[in-house]
């Protein structure tokens, strides 16, 4: 009985630990798991006007950002100055975001990349691989390509090639550029491009980049002059439906912090949106939006080329800051992340404990049942450890007392029911 009580307490502890970890991460750092079913009914028109955008405004009404219809409550933005916002309300054409102050980790990275460290960057060359692909391979730029969508060979390929050639020209980066199209242009394209992303990962890259263009109609939103070039700025997108999100977010922060040191304001903002975008495959996977469809292709090409200058250093392909004082402090070194990796581990463990504990509770219906099932859990492994347990059982001599025997046989019956529960109820 004591072991049962132990397992009941253990399962409760599991659930509470799960809630605790998620609560700690969620409350301290402002991440919302991402699904709001009501938004399907309330915020979206089935026949929405193509290219219509939503202004995201702060409490005072000034525009922070502009995005396509697809903005949801809980989406977050970190702009190039490090201001952190979260969308709290979405109306027809306007979304209201709450300021969450400065993003401390971004500012830490911003401080971290100082001029001396940038000067050191050229020093030691290591080489490394970067994978690049396009999930939406039809994306095109209206002023240059004549249409916003050219199936299988959109103008986005030219932008991809610009990124690739600049990376190869200016550094020792080995680039694997996969030009497989994933048409048609829809959400399931990510399911198809997952195969491409995985194929790239087999080449052991340091990072994989999915290059897109945005769909807001206002070209001036992205248009800017950066380092004396007329370019369209970039937006980094991090998917919230990803248990590793913290790691990817940290990577995005680092990208923006460093890229904006090399070419100020080339990255406009980090947008944390619904979706996964295959970023669960790798902590250093990122999605970039190179301008929008109303920008010219030339602007977008020059924009990604400037962005390319930052990639080798951030990925540690080429020299770069060699220090141990990581932003956020901690055991990790700044190779691919600060504390994002550990936070992501926390999320995964927390979710597993919570869901596992909760499922045990539902499926057995009582705390006793939870205990029983967990007590039976060890038995699952006797299958693999057959000889070991057999020897152990042989070592144990049965007691002679009839009362003890009866209890033992009761226990055995209980165990048998637990063991074979799945056999007779499985459906």
């Amino acid at each position, binding site marked *: 009985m004591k072991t049962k009580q132990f397992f009941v307490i253990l399962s409760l502890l599991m659930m509470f630990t799960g809630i605790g970890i998620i609560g700690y991460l969620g409350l301290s750092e402002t991440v919302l798991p991402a699904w709001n079913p009501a938004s399907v009914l309330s915020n979206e028109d089935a026949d929405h006007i193509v290219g219509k955008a939503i202004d995201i405004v702060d409490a005072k009404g000034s525009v922070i950002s502009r995005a396509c219809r*697809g903005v949801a409550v809980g989406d977050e933005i970190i702009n190039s100055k490090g201001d952190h916002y979260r969308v709290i309300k979405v109306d027809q054409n306007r979304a209201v975001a709450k300021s969450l102050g400065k993003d401390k980790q971004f500012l830490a990275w911003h401080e971290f990349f100082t001029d001396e460290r940038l000067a050191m960057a050229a020093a030691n060359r290591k080489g490394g691989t970067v994978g690049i692909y396009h999930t939406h391979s039809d994306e095109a730029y209206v002023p240059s390509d004549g249409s916003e969508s050219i199936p299988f*060979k959109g103008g986005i390929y030219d932008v991809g090639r610009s990124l690739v050639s600049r990376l190869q020209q200016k550094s020792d980066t080995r680039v694997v550029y996969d030009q497989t199209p994933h048409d048609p242009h*829809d*959400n399931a394209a990510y399911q*198809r491009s997952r195969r491409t992303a*995985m194929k790239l990962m087999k080449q052991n890259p340091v990072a994989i980049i999915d290059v897109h263009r945005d769909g807001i109609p206002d070209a001036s939103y992205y248009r800017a002059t950066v380092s004396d070039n007329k370019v369209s700025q970039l937006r980094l997108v991090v998917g919230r439906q990803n248990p590793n999100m913290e790691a990817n977010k940290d990577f995005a922060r680092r990208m923006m912090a460093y890229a904006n040191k090399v070419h100020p304001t080339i990255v406009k903002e980090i947008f944390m949106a619904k979706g996964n975008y295959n970023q669960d495959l790798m902590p250093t996977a990122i999605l970039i939006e190179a301008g929008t469809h109303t920008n010219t292709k030339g602007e977008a090409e020059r924009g990604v080329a400037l962005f390319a200058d930052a990639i080798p250093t951030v990925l*540690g392909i080429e020299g770069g800051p060699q220090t141990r004082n990581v932003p956020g402090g901690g055991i990790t070194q700044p190779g691919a992340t600060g504390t994002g990796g550990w936070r*992501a581990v926390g999320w995964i463990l927390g979710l597993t404990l919570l869901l596992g504990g909760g499922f045990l509770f539902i499926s057995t219906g009582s705390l006793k049942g939870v205990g029983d099932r967990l007590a039976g859990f060890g038995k699952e492994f006797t299958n693999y450890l057959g000889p070991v347990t057999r020897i152990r059982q042989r070592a144990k001599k049965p007691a002679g007392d009839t009362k003890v025997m009866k209890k033992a046989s009761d226990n055995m*019956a209980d165990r048998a029911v637990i063991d074979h529960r799945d056999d007779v109820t*499985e459906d």
Partner: protein
Amino acid sequence: MDRFPLGLIVLIVVSLLIFFGIAQRALDRMRLSDKGALAVILALIVGSFINIPVPGTPVPLEINVGGALVPVGLAVYLLVKAGTGKEVSRALIASALTAAVIWFIGSRLMTGLPEPAGRFGFLDTLYLFPIVAAVIAYIAGRSRRSAFIGATLGVLMADIANYFYLVRNNATNALKSIGGAGAFDSIVISGILAILLADLIGETRERLQGGPTSEGKPDALLAGLRKPQFGRKKGDDNPRGDGDKESRRELAREEVDRLED
């Protein structure tokens, strides 16, 4: 500079362990023994690295062993082992419905200019497909196995439909990969999540109605569910007159296997 610091290594190891651990527990319920489920997991991992190109196709096509052949093979095995024709037809209808619904949601609703996911991009297809498959399979047959079959074959059919789309539009620069992401492909992940979801739906519903009902259920099923009576006289609770408890349970299980769907 270390490219993969400790935090990330722990992250990768933990997520792999949890993913494959959960996958093994889920596959365990697919008429496989513990070891069988483990073998399937190994096949998924090893097969992830094997792509088989299909020759003579208008648009290049390749099929991954771990991402497509192993899960589809398992689905076919389940269909073959299914007790009744009813079970097979329910599973197949659920698969076809799943394919149609995920195509409709994934490619019809969630499309258009809005970036990055198209309009209605409220949920990534990675999670959407298994939810659709589990709900449809549960409505069609209240069955975890059917959920697995529906999810696997449904996503496969959506892929085949996409292949025909590529052929029809003469996309010769394309390379269609089915299951190319191996153990992390949406075919595999959909199948496993669908089992777990169907399980969750089933268990919750059963709990809400106050436990499993015994009224009107076949005798053999009830015999199988009954607690084995240790220490009772042999033959007491034994419709077949066969005293041995192992073979008795075996018989009951066979009966149950035949009756359940």
